[in-house]
Structures are given as structure tokens and as C-alpha cells.
């Protein structure tokens, strides 16, 4: 049971955004994707979640091929993702969008999804804001709503796109706790981060991506001490 990505290549016109990327994300572990801007990290998430069709390659969740399925089908197989730009439902209250994420169809009982949403919002410290419209919240709280939706989906794999960026210290701690809990529950967690402290603290495996190529894979320590990564990412010169 894992998320295996094999030889994925994706291009936009002439621009090759992903060039033969392979990696495996194990359950109960955090796999961090790092790399400079434009490296193709978000594109990889888009490929996995069915929003961008790759030219070739495969992505399997427990052996089930995800490529070629619609975004909706991928989500129903248990892949929950967040967006770098959040994509909350701005004009919908926090509670309602969490409930919506908890529902698999319109036949789901409102009472069940409401109970679930309430529990999640309590956990994330959003219960006071549950009736506000998402667009009215501060940035940190909006990010928490994005997490709330993912929790509500009850997926097997999480794709987190820069969810920790721009959080206040307390929000940041909460985020780490939630990720740690998810890890304990045996979820597959793939996260994109620029914050290297977080990567060091949370990640079990780090994958370094540059211009669409997956250059180095290893533990945080291994990757951060790699010569190539140091020169490309930290801009160190020898």
C-alpha cells in the first residue's frame, strides 16, 4: 500500500515541466518534495490528481492506476489534495464547505456530515469561525479551512501544496500536529515545502526536483548535504 510514481513526463507545449519523474511515497511516512520555483512540484500534484494529463508514466495507489482517471475519480479513490492557491469556496461558510467535503454524494445524511465537520473544525480551532464565509477569514485560517476539507474527505493519501507557508507560529504548530497524527494513522503524505525547517522536522523522505527532473532522493540530511542540491537550491558556490 503506497503511492508509486513511475517515469512521469508532462509538458505544456514546448516546456517540459516533468521529465521522467519517479518516486514512491510510503504510508505512515511523510515524503517531502522540494525544489526551486518552477521545478514542477505543483505539476506533479496536478498529474497525480488528474488535472493535468501526462505524456507518459504511471501513478499507482495500492496498485490502482490513477493516470487516465478524472480528478473526481482520483479523489474518490482516496487522494485528497490541497491547492497552493487554496481554491476555497469563498462565498460559502466554513462549516458548509467542510460538510461538503465530508459528503460522498447528495444522499449522505446531513447530520453525519455536520457531526464530522464540527469535530474537525474543533480540532483545527475553527469552531468560532464556522459560520463565516471563507473569503472573510485571515490567510492562516483560510489555510486551516483547506486542511479541514482534506481531513473531511477521509482519504488515504494527502497531497499538501505549500500548506505551511505563511502560517503564524501557533498555526504552524497545529499544522505539524495534524500532519503527525495523519502519519500515525498510516496515511500516505506527500508535501511540497519551501520551509526547510519543516522538512527537517517532519519528512522521512525528501525528493529534490529541479526543472522537471528528480535529482536527489534520500533523508533530509542526505539531501541537504548533497553538493548538487546546495548549489542549485541554496545558491552556494564553491
Amino acid at each position, binding site marked *: 500500500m503506497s503511492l508509486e510514481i513511475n517515469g512521469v513526463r508532462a509538458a505544456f507545449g514546448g516546456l517540459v515541466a516533468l521529465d521522467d519523474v519517479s518516486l514512491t511515497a510510503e504510508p505512515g511516512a511523510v515524503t517531502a518534495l522540494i525544489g526551486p520555483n518552477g521545478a514542477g512540484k505543483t505539476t506533479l500534484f496536478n498529474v497525480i490528481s488528474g488535472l493535468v494529463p501526462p505524456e507518459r508514466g504511471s501513478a499507482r495507489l495500492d496498485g490502482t492506476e490513477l493516470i487516465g482517471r478524472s480528478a*473526481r475519480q482520483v479523489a474518490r479513490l482516496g487522494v485528497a489534495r490541497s*491547492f497552493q492557491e487554496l481554491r476555497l*469556496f*469563498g462565498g460559502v461558510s466554513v462549516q458548509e*464547505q467542510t460538510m461538503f467535503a465530508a459528503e460522498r*454524494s*447528495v444522499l449522505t445524511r446531513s447530520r453525519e456530515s455536520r457531526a464530522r465537520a464540527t469535530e474537525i473544525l474543533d480540532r483545527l480551532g475553527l469552531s468560532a469561525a464556522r459560520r*463565516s464565509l471563507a473569503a472573510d477569514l485571515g490567510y492562516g485560517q483560510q489555510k486551516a479551512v483547506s486542511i479541514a476539507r482534506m481531513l473531511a474527505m477521509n482519504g488515504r493519501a494527502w497531497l499538501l501544496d505549500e500548506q505551511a507557508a505563511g502560517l503564524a507560529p501557533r498555526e504552524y504548530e497545529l499544522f505539524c500536529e495534524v500532519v503527525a497524527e495523519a502519519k500515525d494513522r498510516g496515511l500516505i503524505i506527500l508535501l511540497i515545502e519551501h520551509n526547510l525547517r519543516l522538512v527537517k522536522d517532519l519528512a522521512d523522505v525528501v525528493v529534490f526536483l529541479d526543472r522537471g527532473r528528480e535529482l536527489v532522493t534520500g533523508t533530509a540530511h542526505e539531501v541537504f548535504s548533497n553538493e548538487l542540491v546546495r548549489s542549485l537550491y541554496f545558491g552556494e558556490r564553491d
Partner: protein
Amino acid sequence: MLEYLATVGTLTGIFAIAAAGLNITLGYAGVFSAAQAVFVGIGAYVTALLGPQVGGSLIICAVAAAGCSVAVAMVLALTSLRVSDEYFMVASLAFQIMVSTVFTGWYSVTKGTDGISGIPYPRLLGTELSTPETQSRLIWVVAALVVALTAVLRRGSVGRLFLAIREDPVATQTLGRSPTLGKYVAIVLGAAVSSLGGVLYAFYIGFINSAAFDYSLSIQLTAIVIVGGIGWSLGPVVGSAIVVAAVPLISLLDLPSTTVGPLEQLIYGALIIAAVGVRGYIPSAVVLRERWAARAGGARPWRRAHGPVVKP
């Protein structure tokens, strides 16, 4: 004078029902359909043609009208499954004009602009509603029911799906739900509700012709929904009160009769612009209520954040 006011009041109810259908499609699911008058028209024509055969039975007419408009709406919704939002606006307008042409041109059935008269009084549970007062009461009861039903719909899981589609179809997909199916349902449901307005219109006026259901009715319904507050379940009633009842009061001013119509149009247009410009896309009433609720709940003062929705 009193009679005039009663008539206007009843028409307000009828238009509120017709607009409540559009409020589902446009207000909740965010699908801009410019073909709503088609469904009102179908409701009216079904009543005019079937009503005399069934002795004016309201239930039979309503069911038949809803059935017909659902069938037609499915054809329209098929296009929405295939084209993107901008395309659908245009496609629905094309659909409206095409059906209007059929209403006008299919003379043997619809009698075109000459129209069909002699629509019987409606009959409900064995009693004939032969006075304007009883019909008016009936219409307002139906309007209240429709508003209540749309409010329930809005608060339930279907309403959440519609709003999600309106706000962000891509995010809706990645949450495992289908925007296309939701749009489809929204169009069909909206059509069924609007056709009820058409049924009541035909019964109340007793005469219909094709000119009543051309694209200017679609425009008027859109104006009602927007002015009343997009996506607010009571919005169609408020909007209808403004557009159908309040604006025509200018005819009481001492104006030459040719200027009244255009002046009304001018006011609708200005109201639409004002509603978009001043209040934004979400009706202020809803926003205020949510904010008030949030404040009562002790939330932090909100900061303006980025997002697709902009507050007044």
C-alpha cells in the same frame, strides 16, 4: 385602483415563482441560463392546451408542465455538459430564441402572436377557483411553498453541491464530486419550478401569446434574481416586488404612454448594474447575516483576504 393593485400583487407572486426557478440555476449553481422564459412558456402552453381537456385541473396541468419542461431542460442541459460557462450563456440564449421562434411560428398549435384564449378557471381538490382573490391566494401559497422548498434545498447536501460548483468547479472535482452532474440537476430543477410560474400565469390571465415568452422575459427574470439578491431564497420575492410591482408604479406618474415601457427597462438595467457594482456577487443580506452570526459566535474580526468573492 384597488383591483389594479391586487393584479400587480398577484403577478408579483407569479414572477417570484418563475424567478425562483432561475435562482436555483443561476443563484445557487452559478449557471447563467438565458433560456428561463422557455420553461415559463412551456408551463403556460401546456396549461392553455391541456387545461380545457382536463377541466382545469391544476395538479394535472402542473405535473404535465413540469414533465414537459424537464424534458426540454434535459436537451438544454446536454449542451451544458459539453461546453464551458461562456459558451453556455450563448448557447442558452440561442436556445431561447429558437424556442421563441417555435412558439411564434408553429401557428397550428400555439396560435403564435394571436394567442390562445378561453383557458378555464383552475380547479383544485374539486373546487373551482373562479375569483381573482382565490387565485391570488393560491398563487401566494404556491410562492411561499416554492420559497420554503428552495430554502430547504439550499441548506441541504444538494445546495452545498450547487454552491461548490458556483464557487469553483475544479476544486469541486478534486473533492470527489461532479460539477457536470450538479449543473445538469440545477438546470432541470430550475426549469420545473419556473414552469409552475407559467401554469399559474396562464390560469390567472386566461390568455397567452408567444410575445409573452420571448427573450425579454428571460431578461426580466434575470433582473429579478439579481436585484433580489443572487442565491438568496427569498431573493426572487424581493426582486419581483421591486421589478414587477414597484417599477411599474412609474406609470402612475403623468407620462406619455410610449415612454413608460422604455423607462421601466432603463430602471431594470440600472438596477442590475447597481446590484453588481454596489453589492457584489453575493447578496449583501446573506453576507451581513453570516457576518453577524460570526460576530455573535465570537470570531476574530475578519481581515479582508484574497478570494473570488468581494464584499460590498
